[in-house]
């Protein structure tokens, strides 16, 4: 009898050589995750390192917001404290949303399955011979998810501010028709940024750490009715946390790409008013 000293073929267990007897297409989901996440990582890396074409009045790409480095005119609404930074300004702030998503409980499930095959799917043996989970460096750092959530709330506020700015009256050179420049403006970019920030907030507020912080940590809901109510709201959002994670990932990429097309002059913004 061929057995090894680990896994489903361990001595004493039912002797079955196959690493799984599943007959469905269990590999589809991790494969799709692998392809889409890899595509996003390549796209985001290229855009983050480009260091240009991230601002098209009045739109600022979410990859570069807040723009704290040596940014183009009009992009820095919070000053340029890192003007000395020699690389792309995106690299200064992307660590926060990136860290938030990397340590997110949903993303962890997704990439542990799709990238690390630990396990690739339920009931499918993983290829590794040893496993220590999140008990050692570097994976023990997953426990700092809450720190990144604190930062993600700040980033969410900044992106919300960006959306408000995206309604700004346009300068004369961008004016419609008879040259009017007064009143608020709205274009397709504004709409995309608005949708994006809504999805970002849904993702941020449905976070498991948020659920814990607002009320989950309590043992006596009855003594904290307001926090209990907040917890029930976040719990409702939390059931779709994975969906918000995917949607907001796409929306960030779409907004950035739209602004890239505007900034490079490939397209003109669609103006609603």
């Amino acid at each position, binding site marked *: 009898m061929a057995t090894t000293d680990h896994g489903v073929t361990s001595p004493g*267990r039912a002797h*079955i050589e196959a690493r799984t007897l599943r007959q469905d297409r269990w590999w589809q989901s991790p494969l799709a995750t692998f392809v889409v996440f890899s595509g996003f990582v390549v796209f985001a890396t290229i855009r983050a390192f480009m260091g240009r074409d991230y601002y098209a009045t009045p739109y600022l790409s979410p990859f570069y917001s807040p723009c704290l480095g040596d940014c183009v005119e009009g992009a820095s609404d919070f000053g340029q404290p890192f003007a000395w930074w020699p690389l792309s300004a995106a690299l200064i702030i992307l660590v926060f949303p990136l860290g938030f998503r990397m340590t997110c409980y949903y993303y962890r499930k997704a990439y542990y399955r799709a990238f690390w095959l630990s396990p690739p799917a339920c009931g499918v043996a993983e290829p590794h011979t040893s496993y220590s989970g999140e008990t050692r460096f570097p994976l023990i750092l997953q*426990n700092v998810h809450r720190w990144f959530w604190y930062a993600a709330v700040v980033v969410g506020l900044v992106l919300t501010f960006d959306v408000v700015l995206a309604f700004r009256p346009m300068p004369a050179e961008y004016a419609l028709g008879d040259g009017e420049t007064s009143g608020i403006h709205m274009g397709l970019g504004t709409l995309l940024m608005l949708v994006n920030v809504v999805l970002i907030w849904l993702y941020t507020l449905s976070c498991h750490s948020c659920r814990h912080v607002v009320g989950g940590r309590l043992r006596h809901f009855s003594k904290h009715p307001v926090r209990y109510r907040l917890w029930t709201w976040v719990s409702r959002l939390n059931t779709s946390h994975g969906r918000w994670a995917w949607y907001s990932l796409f929306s960030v990429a779409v907004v950035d790409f739209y602004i890239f097309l505007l900034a490079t002059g490939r397209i003109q913004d669609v103006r609603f008013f």
Partner: protein
Amino acid sequence: MAYDLKLRVWRGDAEGGDLTDYTVEVSEGEVVLDALHRLQATQTGDLAIRWNCKAGKCGSCSAEVNGRPRLMCMTRLSDFDPAETITVTPMRTFPVIRDLVTDVSFNYEKARELPYAELGPRDPDGKRRMMQVDVERGQEFRKCIECYLCQDVCHVVRDHEDNKQHFAGPRFFIRYAELDMHPLDTHDRRRLAQDAAGLGMCNITKCCTEVCPEGIRITDNGIIPMKERVVDRKYDPLVWLGNKIGLRNRDDDGRTEV
């Protein structure tokens, strides 16, 4: 309408065994356990199966159907194509005793390592009181029928026999969570859950939730909240600062670490 079902059943014991093919007549509306019972009654009188209620409430007939941990009594034949061969094996995480019966004593050993609730003093009238909203939270975990499918599918022990010593598993993490959320319990099990029970080994890939026949949201409502409670105790700078400057969460008052 009756038809001939092709079954492939693992037969053997700890010394060895193999998948054996059978054909058994089944009827509309039957479940996998019905088919195995007919097989046992008509062809293989010595086939070992553990079962009891046939209603998905006793948690006895746990096995793997086409490689997926399932209760045999809750797996309808109508979910499969009549021409399909259905493969039934024992749970692959636990030592096999014979045929589809496994030795699940690992779980009872882990249960014994978990300190039970230690309630505080009674009210002056001799009663203990909990508000309904506090009681309700733990009720989801009380639905557990201890079928141990979550333990079976958890790759931490399924794929790594050596982890069994240091890992309690999802069934007991929801027990830790339930007790940690208990409004009257005086034990603080956060360190125990992280160190002795191996909560940090869990990488929240959610297979336990996927296979739970009771639909308990093991990961979202049990394991992750318990991980967050451990973070409160060990990794959150704001909680640490709150404790230092007196803005402490008094909800945990009266608990002692075990």
